[in-house]
């Protein structure tokens, strides 16, 4: 349910960046979204498209680049791809793991037409 308010934050951020650029017409935005970011990809995209259509950025293309999570075991050092926030280390079975990627939730770039 928080995807809608996150989508609004994205549009605010896009708006701020476009003002900073001060030129061109926005035709696309690129996002980076980790699979363990806590943001649901489908409902986020749906919300974002809905908010964009009702903003000055109607018609803008959205590309979401998903990031596969990687975790490091703090006991044996193994680097692995966890399915959840509590996937144990596949090598030693420890739950003491640290997520090194997969929590990303960024506006990566703007595609501007000049």
């Amino acid at each position, binding site marked *: *349910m928080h995807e809608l308010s*996150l989508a609004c934050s994205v549009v605010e*951020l896009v708006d701020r960046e476009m003002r900073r650029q001060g030129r061109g017409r926005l035709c696309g935005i*690129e996002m980076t979204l980790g699979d363990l970011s806590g943001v649901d990809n489908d409902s986020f995209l749906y919300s974002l498209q809905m908010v964009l259509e009702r903003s000055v950025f109607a018609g803008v293309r959205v590309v979401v680049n998903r990031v596969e999570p990687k975790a490091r075991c703090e006991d044996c050092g193994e680097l692995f791809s966890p399915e959840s*926030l*509590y996937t144990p280390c596949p090598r030693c079975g420890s*739950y003491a793991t640290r997520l090194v990627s997969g929590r990303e939730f960024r506006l990566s770039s703007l595609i501007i037409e*000049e």
Partner: protein
Amino acid sequence: MCTTCGCGNREMSHEEMHRRGIAHGHEIAVEQDILSENNRVARQNRNRWNLAGCMAVNMVSSPGSGKTTLLERTIEMLGDKGFRRIAVIEGDQQTENDAGRIRRLGIPAIQINTHNGCHLDARMVASAFDELQIKDSLLFIENVGNLVCPAMFDLGESLRVVLLSVTEGDDKPLKYPYMFAGADICVINKIDLLPYVDSDLSRLKENARKVNGQLRFFALSSTRGTGLDEWCDYLLNVLAGKEER
């Protein structure tokens, strides 16, 4: 497609379009965290609260875990122990009910109604803090009852407490891992009901530790008073700087 800017032009290179003055896209790297604005305000809150001598505790849980009742009993017991500098920010979709319950104890409380919102964010809490006009106080923030959305929003708190009642099942930390991953403290409430439910206290803790090995636990019953003493002493020790958060 032009690979430089992804503009979709199939016939020409990016450079060629420049030469011919054809409108096309340019990629501008931004790399900004979507939560950066909330996180900025949260950092600002944390600084302001530190300067005012206030320590904020963000209480998160599902609806009905007993956040407000725990706050009422905690306020009373801290009062018995001689500590009364407390204020509360209440978050709910609607009604002033919870703030009313706190005010009846003689404690200032601000109610935030989020209406369609599912969580409190740093900005809402910043204006509620302004309204409270407090210093040298313990500030409880009771978040909207929701075990999903509030996990992503830092409010500027010093401690995040996730509250879980035994009636909700001991696998809740695995069902809602984000909330448990981001918390410092896990308060297990309604332990007086353990004989009547299938929840097992050690299994619950084990599940929570799988998600977050740093969690500290307090098991208590707000209505019976069991375990409240230890919880309140912990809060006082943190306030006095005698205990690590």
